[in-house]
């Protein structure tokens, strides 16, 4: 029973890391370390961005296995850090499996910030990016409006059943159309505005993760993430191109 709890906690930790877009080796090492901390020495895990298999061979010859398919991946860096500190406490013995399981579940059920707030921060980021690319106050405001629309478009698009992988196409399109339309009226540097508005959409995390996974020898996952990054960049570019061709 204790072993069941331990492997559940380790599997949940790995699952949380994968769902929050952590690196593969982090998910693998965390699960193995947590198993070790709970006294399960012969643990083996294989992780991909889309799922993992965790297997523990017990001393009496039986074995425990957990298989999880990871479907929704979001970016929540703070959660990665929390899982890290939970696993650390499990390793040094100051946290048992039951507590770790509860802490992980609490972490996973934390509500994400309201979309209006996200749209606001997206707008601020977009505005500053457009200033970074040589825009002025006018460009800041225009890019902020475009960026806010890009983020605000996510919930209605999700309700319409748009797949997550196509989301950046529609977001980039919404941002570009909005800022192009506004620029028809008030003018401004098109380059700074549109680039600023799409900058926060670009797959920076996917690129860094692809590099780090490949470096650690997780070749399959590295390639998968590189493809993800490339696809997302192409979709954003396509969204902008559609808007420009209108």
């Amino acid at each position: 029973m204790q072993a069941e709890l331990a492997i559940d906690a380790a599997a949940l930790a790995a699952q949380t890391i994968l769902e929050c877009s952590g690196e593969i080796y982090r998910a693998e090492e965390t699960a193995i370390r947590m198993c070790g901390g709970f006294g399960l020495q012969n643990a083996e895990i294989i992780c991909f961005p889309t799922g993992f298999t965790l297997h523990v061979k017990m001393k009496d010859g039986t074995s425990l296995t957990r298989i999880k398919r990871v479907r929704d991946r979001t970016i929540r860096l703070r959660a990665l850090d929390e899982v890290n500190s939970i696993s650390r406490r499990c390793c040094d013995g100051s946290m048992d499996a039951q507590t770790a399981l509860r802490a992980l579940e609490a972490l996973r059920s934390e509500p994400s910030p309201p979309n209006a707030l996200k749209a606001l921060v997206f707008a601020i980021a977009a505005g500053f990016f457009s200033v970074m690319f040589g825009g002025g106050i006018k460009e800041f405001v225009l890019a902020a409006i475009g960026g806010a629309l890009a983020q605000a478009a996510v919930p209605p698009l999700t309700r319409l059943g748009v797949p997550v992988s196509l989301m950046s196409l529609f977001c980039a399109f919404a941002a570009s159309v909005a800022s192009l339309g506004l620029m028809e009226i008030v003018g401004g540097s098109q380059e700074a505005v549109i680039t600023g508005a799409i900058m926060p959409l670009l797959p920076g995390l996917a690129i860094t993760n692809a590099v780090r996974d490949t470096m650690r020898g997780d070749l399959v996952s590295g390639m998968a993430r590189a493809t993800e990054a490339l696809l997302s960049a192409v979709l954003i570019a396509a969204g902008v191109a559609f808007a420009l061709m209108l």
Partner: protein
Amino acid sequence: MNVLIQCLAALFASAAFGWLLAQPKQTMLYTSLIGLNGYVIFLLMGQTAMAYFISSLVVGLLCELTARVLRMATTLFLVSAIIPLVPGLGLYRTMMYLAQENFSMAVTTGVDTLTGIGAIALSLTIATAIFSRIRINVRPDASPAD
């Protein structure tokens, strides 16, 4: 003066981007400063492929170092510190030329953009490789999971 404003904008942009990715609050200051640093180097070196390489190498090394000193995961720092360097402008210009059916310029800018992304990936690889065998134990209880 203009350049100064652009650099300050890079600072705030990477801070806001970090918030968007739900980055831990105590890392925000470091990442935006490293992001600013990278962008300044990038501008000073004249926005060439070499500038991409050097500036993101500096960003990568600084992030690895900060992550080890603070005992946190490197990714937490890397993502929003590198974002000012991601060639969004090149991406946009490529699409602009494509939409105008100016294909020769589109190919030129497209290749430039791809080179930029490649340079960033390469330098991050090098930064990770340099640090992958180094463990800085700031505190005695440091575990090697970083």
